[in-house]
């Protein structure tokens, strides 16, 4: 089970969409967090919100989830939104087990998340 992760970052209007593909675990979480925080700093220095498109995430470990919490806290402190969309079934299970589904704003699809930002 080798860990590979690519992270695409795109700007859609006021929204930064971060799309990781692969496993976010002990081996990849540090790079993922660095990319995430770069995007968050740009938002805080400028404007907008962040949506994470998780359609391509096969697994996330505790260290990866911690990165999400750090990112969510940063944006909430700046009165910006941090949403996650399109969890794969296994990641959805991990969110339930970790109770992250109770503390992070999760949406079924990327479109749902984008709509939630403007509503």
């Amino acid at each position: 089970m080798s860990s590979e992760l690519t992270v695409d970052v795109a700007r859609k209007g006021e929204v930064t969409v971060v799309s990781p593909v692969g496993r976010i675990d002990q081996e990849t979480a540090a790079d993922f967090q660095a990319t995430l925080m770069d995007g968050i700093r740009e938002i805080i220095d400028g404007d907008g919100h962040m949506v994470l498109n998780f359609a391509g995430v096969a697994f996330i470990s505790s260290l990866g989830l911690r990165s999400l919490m750090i990112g969510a806290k940063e944006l909430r402190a700046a009165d910006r939104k941090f949403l996650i969309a399109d969890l794969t079934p296994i990641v959805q299970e991990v969110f339930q087990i970790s109770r992250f589904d109770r503390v992070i704003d999760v949406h079924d699809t990327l479109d749902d998340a984008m709509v939630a930002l403007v509503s």
Partner: protein
Amino acid sequence: MQVRFWGTRGSISASLSAADVRGKVRRALQQALAQGLTSADDVDAFIDNELAFAVAGTYGGNTSCVEIDAGGDDYILCDVGTGVREFATRGLRKSGPGRDPVYNVFVSHVHWDHIMGFPFFIPAYIPGAKVRIHGCHETLEQAFRTQHSDPNFPVQFDDLMSSIEFIQLDPDQAHSVCGVTVRAMKQRHAGDSFGYRFEKDGKVVVYATDSEHDLGSTAEIDDLVGFFADADILIFDAMYSLAEAVSLKEDWGHSSNMVGVELAQRAGVKHFCLFHHEPLNDDDAMSEIVQETRRFAELSQPEDTVELQVSAAYDGMEVVL
């Protein structure tokens, strides 16, 4: 070696209420009605094989106390929370006429829930009984003496009739007690706590409660993996969900089931045992957490590794290694 759990609850003892017991009885009877049970043996088999543990039993409510039975004539206990009263009532197999066991206590730290059972530890009151309290904190003796003083408790520490010795441990050195090699490791907790690794005849028990883990610190995680390495059982503080541990309850000094599973898998642990249960969690919640933890262990299991056994400690549980 054998491990016996006399107290498994975190922070404060948590008793079942009359309503809790009624709820269990009701669920058991509802299931039993459909079974057509006719004999006592049928009833026992039904309880043991059909009823869920959360219905037929309970995880218990006593605070931390775990016995490590390494054979021999003496006792080893980890912490003396309220569970030590049960140990002193039901667990004194090596005591009695003509026997002179030493009661060795290893204290993770001196927060109240880990020492509050000592005033009800009967051997402490028996003339000639030998109690050795081992720990790494300079405040070890002071904490026990303060608890046994006005206005906290009517019996003063110096009036206890046993022979009580405090033994300061150096966490950087191995110690030998009852033929068991014991190592301590400093843990992240308010005022520090210490985990203990017990080794004898190739068997390893690690008692690691009241510890939070900095997932971002590679050095800290590597040290933990080394301390837990190849343990036959890892008794682990999994009080909070991961979400709690990294948000609202960050820096509260406790860990989660998920972090424990990941550390155990990296360390090659055989049996991962949830411990220091959140007192807010009832038996159904605990059973759900056990199932979820087993599932997470499946999801996170590294390739070419042996499946991790996962359980939740309960008061009265025995594990033979």
